[in-house]
């Protein structure tokens, strides 16, 4: 695209517009080469939705003109002499409008947990504040759920109905316990029960999930594995467990986000993750855990008054 400007004296200035959806300082050299290959220098105008201060500085140093959608503009031409400099945003705008494609990331997880952990009806802003969640992300996650008719909002935008099991199942399509978290396997030679006993006295932050957690919430078959979120694998020493492959019965997970330690419940003296987190972890876990996840979903739907907080 070619853009024509006129100087105050009426002289025409022709600019070749080079549009980029994203321009980072590290891709600038490449852009400069591309322009040079086409014989372009100061007559090129680089446009992008947003140009960071660093990118703008480097463009200016290279003598390239630019403009972004937030109003940052610098056009500097020697012949005819022409110069404009305007300041726009110093930070990348929140891309609120950009639809979210997946519920995989930690931001979505925080938003989903906030939506599941509190009983509707609620408005988004107070929920975001209470749950320590980004409001924009909350809206984007909600848009996905609305698109799949998993949530009902009233005319004022408040969430009035949100069936947790449907939302958790949708989350589990994109989330995966073993990929989202950093996990290592250990052996407690005295059995899962011994590890659970030690957790009751644990001096560090943890939250039990997986089959052993499910067993404390909705009794199922005795767990062969204790799956525990911890902040660091140094917890292994405190628990007296040793790293093991074959025969391991304790899985420590350093979580994708601290949200796993938030809004936990206590059962039998042991800290257990919030039931929606428990269900999501089980649904995406190995072996018979998805079936246990189904049981947890049945339980949490029937017992919302036990675990779901009021905003």
């Amino acid at each position: 695209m070619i853009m024509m400007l006129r100087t105050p004296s009426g002289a025409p200035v022709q600019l070749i517009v080079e549009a980029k959806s994203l321009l980072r300082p590290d891709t600038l050299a490449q852009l400069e080469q591309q322009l040079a290959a086409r014989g372009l220098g100061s007559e090129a105008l680089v446009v992008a939705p947003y140009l960071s201060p660093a990118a703008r500085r480097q463009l200016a140093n290279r003598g390239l003109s630019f403009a972004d959608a937030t109003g940052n503009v610098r056009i500097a031409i020697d012949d005819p002499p022409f110069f404009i400099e305007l300041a726009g945003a110093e930070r990348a705008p929140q891309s609120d409008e950009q639809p979210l494609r997946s519920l995989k990331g930690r931001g979505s997880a925080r938003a989903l947990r906030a939506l599941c952990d509190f009983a509707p009806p609620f408005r988004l802003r107070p929920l975001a504040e209470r749950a320590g969640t980004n409001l924009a992300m909350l809206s984007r996650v909600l848009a996905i759920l609305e698109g799949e008719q998993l949530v009902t909002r009233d005319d004022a935008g408040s969430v009035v109905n949100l069936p947790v099991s449907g939302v958790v199942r949708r989350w589990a399509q994109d989330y995966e316990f073993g990929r989202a978290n950093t996990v290592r396997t250990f052996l407690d030679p005295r059995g899962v029960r011994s590890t659970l006993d030690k957790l009751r006295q644990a001096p560090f932050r943890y939250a039990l999930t997986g089959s052993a957690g499910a067993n404390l919430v909705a009794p199922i078959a005795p767990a062969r594995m204790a799956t525990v979120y911890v902040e660091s694998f140094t917890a292994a020493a405190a628990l007296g467990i040793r790293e093991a492959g074959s025969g391991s019965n304790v899985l420590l997970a350093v979580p994708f986000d601290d949200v796993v330690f938030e809004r936990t419940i206590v059962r039998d003296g042991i800290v257990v993750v919030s039931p929606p987190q428990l269900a999501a972890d089980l649904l995406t876990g190995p072996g018979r855990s998805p079936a246990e996840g189904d049981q947890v979903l049945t339980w949490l739907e029937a017992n919302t008054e036990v675990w779901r907080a009021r905003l």
Partner: protein
Amino acid sequence: MIQMYVEARRTLLDALDALEPQLDSIVIVGAQAIYLHVGDADFGVAPFTTDGDLAMDPSLLTDEPSLIALMNAAGFVPGPLKGGAAQPGTWVNGAGIAIDLLVPASLGKRPGHRGADLGASHGSRAARNVAGLEGALVDKQRMAIPSLDGPDARVRHAFVAGPSGLLVSKFHKLGERSHNDPARLKDKDALDVYRLLREVPAAQLVSGFEALRHNAISEAATRDGLAYARQMFGSPTAAGVDMVVRALATTGEDPEFVRASAAALADDLFVEFD
């Protein structure tokens, strides 16, 4: 409560009552002693048969009253012939439930014989020599032994071998049979070892073994017992570990976990005594 446990406990209490005048010389050993320490450890496997095992300390046994007279008076008679030969030390009650009176082999006067020579009053058929029981006489504690039978309100106080003494004796039993008579190896004995290793705190086992190693009576038996243990439980695929896995085959315990666990627990003991 399974009726078999009730019967076994009743017979054990009957024997303790019968032997009351000699009770200071007696220590409960075997599966019933293990049960008193660790219960059935949630494995869902019958923890003991109906037999009761009592170890005798010859140095604390008085000449009178005679063990024979005491046992007979309580209705116990010498056990049935086994394989054509009489089995010294086995006594049975009217229901056919056995009590075995056992003497640590190194303390008997007739090493090499089955029957333990306990002097003129008791003879050489009241009790039998068993290798590796020495630790039970050193590591022992007095415990209350209640009846498991509703109407039977008896509670008797008697010495029970401690976990370390019991382990030494089990290590001997497994190790000796593995060498001399593999056909007589019983998976249940290896499971008893695993029960103790898993349920008794490691620090308690280690201090128990320390005490046994520093006592002249039990020193040699403990050293030999640990050597047997290394052969039977020295790795996740050792013979004793195989036996534990078989004993737990129907319980839902993960065999790979049992292997890793048994070897790790045994190793915790070995590293203390290398």
